[in-house]
């Protein structure tokens, strides 16, 4: 599959260095070194987990900040768990190659939970959760799910999300079918008995500070992206 992709990219005239991350222990260091050497675009070939690791490497340092400001992120989705690619309007690997060629660029916000970044969303079970926002607290006693959304991954979702506004959408749906919706750019969330799941790939303990970094990452997107 990946070999076929390489041929397709070469056919389209998109040449570059290919690094296989499997087996590399210091992924962040490896990618940052490529940025230092002048890589302008980093293409994540894989699923959410791959994208998440690469985002951490693209922006997670001040040493090469001048280089990193210019670094673009592209995605070629492979396998399951590709909600980030879907959000960006990239449905499959075949389409991804054409999207890379078209080079439509958007700067979008990045969610931050402690030291973890998320493009799509962070989720946690709602029963027993508390959110501290500005001058008030929100307590949830019912079972259900809390979604902290930067970028929608499901276009059937009833809410709208704007990854350019410097805010995160907080959506709480309980099993009693009630819905809570609000936005915030900074808050604290805690649930002693549950972990916060970041983009479906990392789990972290709470309490944790959640924030958003406005227009932090430049990504190559498709026409069918789930935001304007």
């Amino acid at each position: 599959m990946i070999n076929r992709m390489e041929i397709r990219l070469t056919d389209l005239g998109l040449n570059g260095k290919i690094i296989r991350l499997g087996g590399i222990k210091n992924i962040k260091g490896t990618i940052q070194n490529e940025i230092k050497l002048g890589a302008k675009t980093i293409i994540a070939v894989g699923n959410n987990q791959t994208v998440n690791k690469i985002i951490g490497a693209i922006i997670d340092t001040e040493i090469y900040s001048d280089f990193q400001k210019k670094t673009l992120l592209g995605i070629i989705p492979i396998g399951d768990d590709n909600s980030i690619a879907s959000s960006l309007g990239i449905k499959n690997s075949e389409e991804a190659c054409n999207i890379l060629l078209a080079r439509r660029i958007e700067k979008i916000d990045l969610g931050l939970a402690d030291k973890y970044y998320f493009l799509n969303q962070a989720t946690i079970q709602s029963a027993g959760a508390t959110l501290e926002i500005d001058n008030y607290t929100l307590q949830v006693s019912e079972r259900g799910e809390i979604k902290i959304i930067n970028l929608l991954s499901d276009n059937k979702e009833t809410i709208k999300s704007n990854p350019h506004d410097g805010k995160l959408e907080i959506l709480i749906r309980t099993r009693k079918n009630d819905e809570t919706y609000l936005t915030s750019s900074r808050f604290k969330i805690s649930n002693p008995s549950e972990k916060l799941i970041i983009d479906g790939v990392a789990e972290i303990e709470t309490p944790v500070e959640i924030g958003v970094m406005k227009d932090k990452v430049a990504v190559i997107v498709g026409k069918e992206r789930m935001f304007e």
Partner: protein
Amino acid sequence: MFNKENKLEKFKDAETIIGASIKVKGNFQGQGDIIIEGTLEGSLKTDANIFIGDRAKVVASVESKDIIVNGEVRGNLKAKNYLAIGGTAKIFGDVQYGEISIEKGATINGQLLMLAEENRRAEKIKVEEREEGSGK
């Protein structure tokens, strides 16, 4: 903005919705429309409109442009423009309003005070200036 059933016409566009199983404590301040179906203790204020659902319990001072009350409010209410009190509403506190409608069955334990015309005009100008400033 209100229809006959005392529901927000632009429900989808509400900036904040507090669901029935949520408890909010503190000073809640917004700029857009707020829908409260759960419990709120503290204060509630917005430049836009507030809808208090029939299952909601609000122990707070409430202030906004237009307010619809169908649930329980323990605290003072101030609707700078229009206040609609539904038949299931229970209000324990003083009520200030520009205009008011009260449905049969509502409970109000407090003073009803109509905002003076000049106050209303001043409030209206403030709201219009704010809306112009925010480009609405």
